[in-house]
């Protein structure tokens, strides 16, 4: 039987089995796993089984739910994962009930090896993506919530206060063709640039080396929600707007 174990540092606080009912996690005592900490919301998160997978869902908590190091809204859990809420963490033990959770035999769901390039039609594509999701390799953010990458100007002279990143490449500089237009004497035409790639947004150098979170970047750096970018007297926050 799969189970969740609430831990505070090395101490075991409480252990609950995962059944058909969702396991509630939060500060309110009527949760299955009550967590006595002010950083934890009353109803912070819940864990349940869906389509044979073990899923954790954040209930719009103030300080967030983390799986291992990653902040998640919804994520598939695997045996040995840790869910972090505040300073407590919850160990995931899915070892006892792997068939129900679909963790074994996931290779069986994969299509046979394909060497030749092929195109999937719409139905095959849907099936394959569903299969891939069921494999539960690393499902995280719910696709239903659209996230808009945005640069918010905190200080410095620019033509707008906010820029939504819509292009593959966003140029920051004095150039009249730049998306984020810097104003003022002695500003470079091309100060820095942001490249949208499959796994996220990367800030890279232009004529200047931008700083991210107080340190100069060594090369293109993947931006995380809330990162602070500084270049040529301009300070901006990179955020995902919901």
């Amino acid at each position, binding site marked *: 039987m799969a189970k969740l174990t609430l831990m505070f540092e090395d101490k075991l606080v409480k252990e609950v089995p995962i059944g058909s009912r969702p396991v509630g996690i939060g500060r309110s005592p009527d949760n299955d796993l009550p967590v006595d900490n002010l950083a934890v919301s009353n109803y912070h998160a819940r864990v349940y089984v869906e389509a044979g997978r073990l899923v954790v869902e954040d209930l719009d908590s103030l300080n967030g739910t983390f799986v291992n190091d990653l902040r998640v809204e919804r994520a598939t859990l695997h045996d040995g994962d840790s869910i972090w809420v505040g300073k407590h963490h919850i160990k995931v033990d899915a070892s006892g009930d792997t068939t129900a959770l679909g963790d074994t035999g996931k290779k069986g769901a994969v299509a046979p090896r394909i060497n030749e390039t092929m195109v999937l039609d719409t139905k095959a594509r849907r099936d394959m993506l569903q299969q891939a999701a069921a494999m539960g390799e690393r499902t995280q953010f719910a696709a239903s919530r659209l996230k808009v990458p945005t640069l918010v100007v905190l200080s410095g002279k620019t033509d707008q206060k906010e820029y939504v990143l819509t292009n593959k490449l966003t140029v920051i500089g004095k150039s009249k063709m730049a998306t984020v237009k810097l104003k003022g004497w002695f500003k470079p035409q091309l100060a820095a640039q942001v490249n949208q790639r499959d*796994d996220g947004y990367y800030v890279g150098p*232009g004529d200047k080396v931008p700083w991210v979170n107080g340190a100069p970047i060594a090369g293109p750096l993947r931006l995380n929600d809330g990162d602070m970018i500084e270049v040529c007297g301009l300070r901006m926050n990179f955020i995902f707007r919901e």
Partner: protein
Amino acid sequence: MEIASGGVTNVGRVRTNNEDCFRIVEPMNLYVLSDGMGGEAHGEVASALAVETVVKHCQETENDPAMTIFGDMPAVWSEKTKRLSSAVHLANKSIYDSAQAHPDQRGMGATVTAAWIDGTRLSIAHVGDSRAYLLRSGTLQQLTSDHSLVAEQVRRGILTPAEAERSEMQSVLLRALGAHPEIEVDSEEHTLFGHDVLLLCSDGLTRMVTEPEIAGTLQAEPDPAKASERLVELANEQGGADNVTAVVVRIGGEAKGWFSWLRGGARKTAQKNGSAGGK
């Protein structure tokens, strides 16, 4: 801005036929690359058809700007971006129609990545898993998204980029020319800066050679023809599992600030005075 370009396609070290195809139309600053798929020789048919159709349409629209634009696209786009995107829609239709007319060609398809430079504006139109990169300030930036299953899984957070590289499903495409009568084309416009280097390449390059190696080669070799040869060599040295194609386009330096303006002005004056010698 001065533009220099060069390209190479090679069968690789494993395959016996080359289904990649590219065309550089220097007077138009038009660059088109395609990677075909399909049994027998049909991959070659598809990629050649893709390249030919795109080039032909772009040439025709130069003479006849009133030609129909295919597909929905934002009004703010430049004429050339709309034309290039239309051309890719047409290429899809050509391949689809050909496959319908010849039952032995069923299942053939092709990727296409096309770039058209007009002054400082770069237009890109793209379908499939060939790629366009821009090397700028030493950083290689990807201008296209692969329409492959693994890339989609990375975008959805199901796979990490490293897992995608090891995946056995890398060849599965979600979008390619010729599979359906209608297609969605990715198009975009960018502004070029002096010393930018544009690279179009097939997956035979990107699966064999890492991005830092690509960036290093483009920086080390100023001649576009030699740079593309070197990239193809690298892919073959590292396995050459697929056909490999690279097209390199190098943008010249631009006049910057008052100092070069003065120098440029002085040079012009010197030419007017009829002084001999090189540039």
